[in-house]
């Protein structure tokens, strides 16, 4: 479904060249939920923006269902970390969800259906008439997720979406993402710096190295599909997987440091 091949991104600005992403190759199957995890500052956001067509890669390519991504493709939806700045504050919740659908030239009836269904899915059926800033942080991120759902994407890109909400809300939102993924069978690429979150959510975890980024390791998460916050997180297999990812990230940090000295 999604193929990233030889992706490289170099920022050039005011005489300085920064190589954010060196050489990344991985793919995501249709209907898969893949988590990208890596040490902070390892170019995760850059990578995701290249995948989403928001940034042009310096080399390499991204293919969505075989077609090369050169700008934001219609089959992709993006959920940003900064939910407060990603929702349009001058529009009500319903209008926020509806705007991209208008752009897609969908009929009024169909739009209304999709908006109601998406808000219902995230548990905000009553909030359509509120302004985003009247809602709590967790609810705002739910709106952003609803907007992405209503867009009916083939691939959903999520950039550390829960980094700025409190722990309790975060657990709820993680379960929401798992549920939506299982119900709707969308392909999800989820970026996070939180190892537990990556293991709990993903069917597969891709560990990235420190910047300039390469794939450090790919790991299949063989936890049961039915997961819950209490039992899954204390299961021995969860602990093993977490330790493994943790070790890889530590290795990545050391490796990154070693390269920098060279």
């Amino acid at each position: 479904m999604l193929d990233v091949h030889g992706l490289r991104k170099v920022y050039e600005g005011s005489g300085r060249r920064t190589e954010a992403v060196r050489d990344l190759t991985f793919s995501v199957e249709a209907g898969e939920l893949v988590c990208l995890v890596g040490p902070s500052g390892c170019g995760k956001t850059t990578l995701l923006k290249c995948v989403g067509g928001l940034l042009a890669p310096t080399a390499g390519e991204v293919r969505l269902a075989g077609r090369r991504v050169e700008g934001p493709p219609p089959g992709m939806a993006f959920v940003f970390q900064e939910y407060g700045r990603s929702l349009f504050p001058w529009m009500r919740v319903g209008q926020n969800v509806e705007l991209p659908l208008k752009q897609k030239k969908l009929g009024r009836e169909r739009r209304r259906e999709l908006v109601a269904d998406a808000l219902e899915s995230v548990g905000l059926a009553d909030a359509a008439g509120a302004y985003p800033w009247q809602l709590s942080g967790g609810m705002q991120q739910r709106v952003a997720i609803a907007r992405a759902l209503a867009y009916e994407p083939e691939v959903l890109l999520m950039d550390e979406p829960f980094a700025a909400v409190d722990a309790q809300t975060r657990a709820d939102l993680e379960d929401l993402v798992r549920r939506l993924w299982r119900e709707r069978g969308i392909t999800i690429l989820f970026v996070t710096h939180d190892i537990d979150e990556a293991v709990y959510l993903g069917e597969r975890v891709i560990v990235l190295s420190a910047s300039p980024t390469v794939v450090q390791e790919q790991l299949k998460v063989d936890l049961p599909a039915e997961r819950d916050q209490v039992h899954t997180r204390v299961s021995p297999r969860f602990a093993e997987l977490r330790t493994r990812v943790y070790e890889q990230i530590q290795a990545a940090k050391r490796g990154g440091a070693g390269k920098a000295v060279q």
Partner: protein
Amino acid sequence: MRRLLLRLFFALALPAVLVAVWWAASAGSTNVYWPPLRTILGTFPDVWTADRLRTDVGPSVLRLAAGYATAAVVGVALGTVIGSYRRVRAVCEPVLEFLRAVPPPVLVPVIMLFAGIGDTMKIAVIASGCVWPVLLNTVEGVRAVDPVLAQTARSYGITGPARLREVVLRSASPQIFAGLRQALSIGIILMVISEMFAASNGLGFTIVQFQRGFAIPDMWTGILLLGLLGFLLSVLFRLVERRVLGWYHGLREAGRRSP
């Protein structure tokens, strides 16, 4: 109920006291320049008859509206273009800074050269004075569109006219309104001045006529009417602003409660 009454009391007490003081202090006034308030208020309905309102106040307000609307459209359009492109902005900035700094009333003699002393001149004067605050604030607002918001729009395929209408202009609207507010007070000043310079009707013209003819109470009624007009326009502006920018005030209020 009690709170409402209290607020009403606070809103009305001082104005009432001030008017009363003016009334009392000027009651026995023999100074020609400071006629008793009673006389001024008594003169008001005689001076500002329906006829006068039509022949003098009407044209003034229409010119103001025409000039102000022109300035708003031109300012927002140009400001959006200049604000959207970094290079265009860099080229235009020094020239705009200079043009904005020219005190607008000195444009009256220049525009009189081109447009004579008719309505066109007055509308042009008002428009050319009002356009700068609108233009420069629009540039600032368009430039400052939140990058996350801009990327969100892009990733959902919101481009072209929809992006301009739903994202850029909406996001810049608080700044645009700040510019429009400044432009309104400049517009009123220019409306009056352009009529004081050369006109055969209008509020400014009439008030100066009264002053030259030493019709002092009449002149005072003119000053009051001009003040009332300024006040009404500002109330009208605030109503529109509160409607259009309701989201913005709510957002700021929410930000203040939980920083």
